[in-house]
């Protein structure tokens, strides 16, 4: 863990890109593409209800993946659902990175006593997983995309603090940082000039893993009906709606379920691949 530091890019350009990163990037890219395209075009209008072909199988009446129990086109709803998933993830991870990184760097630079205090507080916050925070906020303010984003973001902060602090402590123990400090470079300047660039790789890896967790939490929330409202297509809600007709139209559950799994897999693979690239310890294996 302590050796998870980034090396300058470029020097490693001779190494092949790991297949993990490629597969992860393709999956994430595909979902992002579907989300972007959905702004301009979807196979069917979202509000169109094909009453003649409800709970239809794939290919029926031009519906690629079939229709749900109200006759809505599943492929179109999946594409728009990708928007919700990516949007919630971006904001949540953004909150976590923007709050968690400065706290982590600070905790890695201050005196051990204060650092210990920050980490104890952090441990308490780690006892609140994303879904739990989201349920708390949904109970108080009612379920919405905003509560989901804020809750998942807040719950992801401790993870960032922990990883960034470990990286910061390692940077702080290097000779060149010591030299800079002796030469009179101030704390804030050291943080910006030396620590931040060196932990930037860690931030990206952590963001990728946090994104996967955010997708799971968002899907779980909308599955429980505490996330996006019924008017906004979301994968979790589609899955929940499909559960009631598992006997008659099982495929309506399989599509949104696979979308969630592939999105999580994509971000996990991306995170793992990037971590392998950054961690010098793993290179020997």
């Amino acid at each position, binding site marked *: 863990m302590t050796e998870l530091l980034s090396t300058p890019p470029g020097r490693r350009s001779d190494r092949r890109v790991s297949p993990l990163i490629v597969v992860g990037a393709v999956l994430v890219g595909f979902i992002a593409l579907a989300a972007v395209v959905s702004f301009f075009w979807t196979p069917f209008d979202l509000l169109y209800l094909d009453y003649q072909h409800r709970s239809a199988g794939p290919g029926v009446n031009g519906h690629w993946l079939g229709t749900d129990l109200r006759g809505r086109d599943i492929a179109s709803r999946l594409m728009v659902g990708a928007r919700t998933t990516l949007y919630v993830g971006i904001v949540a991870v953004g909150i976590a990175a923007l709050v968690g990184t400065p706290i982590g760097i600070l905790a890695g630079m201050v005196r051990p006593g204060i650092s210990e205090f920050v980490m104890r507080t952090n441990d308490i916050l780690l*006892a609140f*997983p994303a879904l739990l925070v989201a*349920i708390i906020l949904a109970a*108080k303010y009612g379920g919405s995309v905003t509560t989901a984003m804020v809750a998942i973001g807040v719950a992801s902060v401790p993870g960032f603090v922990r990883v960034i602090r470990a990286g910061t402590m390692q940077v702080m123990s290097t000779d060149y940082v010591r030299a800079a400090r002796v030469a009179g470079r101030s704390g804030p300047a050291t943080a910006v000039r030396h620590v931040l660039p060196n932990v930037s790789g860690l931030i990206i890896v952590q963001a990728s893993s946090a994104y996967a967790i955010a997708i799971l939490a968002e*899907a779980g929330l909308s*599955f429980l009906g505490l996330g996006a409202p019924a008017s906004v297509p979301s994968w979790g809600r589609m899955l929940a709606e499909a559960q009631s007709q*598992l006997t008659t139209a099982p495929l309506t559950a399989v599509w949104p379920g696979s979308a969630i799994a592939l999105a999580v897999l994509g971000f*996990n*693979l991306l995170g793992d691949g990037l971590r392998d690239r950054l961690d010098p310890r793993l290179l020997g294996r």
Partner: protein
Amino acid sequence: MLWPVVRRALIFLVSTLVASLLVFWVLDNGCEPARVALGTGGTPAGVQALCAQMGLDRSLVVQYLNWLGGAVRGDFGTSYVTRAPIGPGLLDQLTVTLWLVFGSMVVALLIAVPLGMASALRNGRPTGYLLSGLSQVGVAVPAFLAAILLVLVFAVNLGWLPANGYVVPAADPLGFVAHMLLPWVSLGVVQGAVLARFVRSAVLDELGQDYLRTARSKGLTPVRALIRHGLRNAAIPVLTVIGVNLVTVLVGAVIIERIFTIPGIGNGLAYAADRRDLLTVQAIVVTLVLIALLISFVVDVTYSVIDPRLRTRAAS
């Protein structure tokens, strides 16, 4: 030997107090509970009166201490939505959830240990890649998706197991297992995949150690050497991960209980959140967080018991 345990116990106590205060503060919503309790028929004056009667107009600290005084005796107050006391129902729900979590951790270990060991022993070979890939896919499958797919296959198509419901174990042990098998596997498969990755790297770390080479030179096969000597050492990092993941399993149980209509604490939480029953949400969340912190306390202590190196280091 004793001081580290006492120190950790103190940290656990303080953490629990801070966490419960945090939950209390976040869920504080002024007179809103009085408004919810009166529904649409409430006049502003009526809301004010009930608010004062419920003690919601007092300072947050006073309210917290009042609540804490009851909570330590198992009295979490009376829900203003269901008008029933929260404490007794909570205990029943908790028992059900602990059955669910315990069973799924057993399933997870049954999957993770052999899978992790196999993929470590086969590291660098095609089967190794295949097993690692399998656990990678397993990690990405949310428990609720696994649940729906399992229901689809074993309840809907094959008709072997019930699709939902719950039976009290004392009344009908076989029925209990039949009803819990799919929930256990749904939660356990995903956790098993997560744990398998940690078992793999822990075993890989041990495989390079000298003592294993010695064991091999005594004539033990790689697998037997690993089981006899390596697993105990590999258990230490895995134990920590299990502790951390138990919390995830507890929260994952929220959704699994909803799918299988199991009357556990998670179902209670989702139901209460949906009806905005803040007092019940508060009781359940504090209970969950208490369990989470208790688990990490127990893991920390067990950790120092299993690993003699840590014991001496802590004592010195």
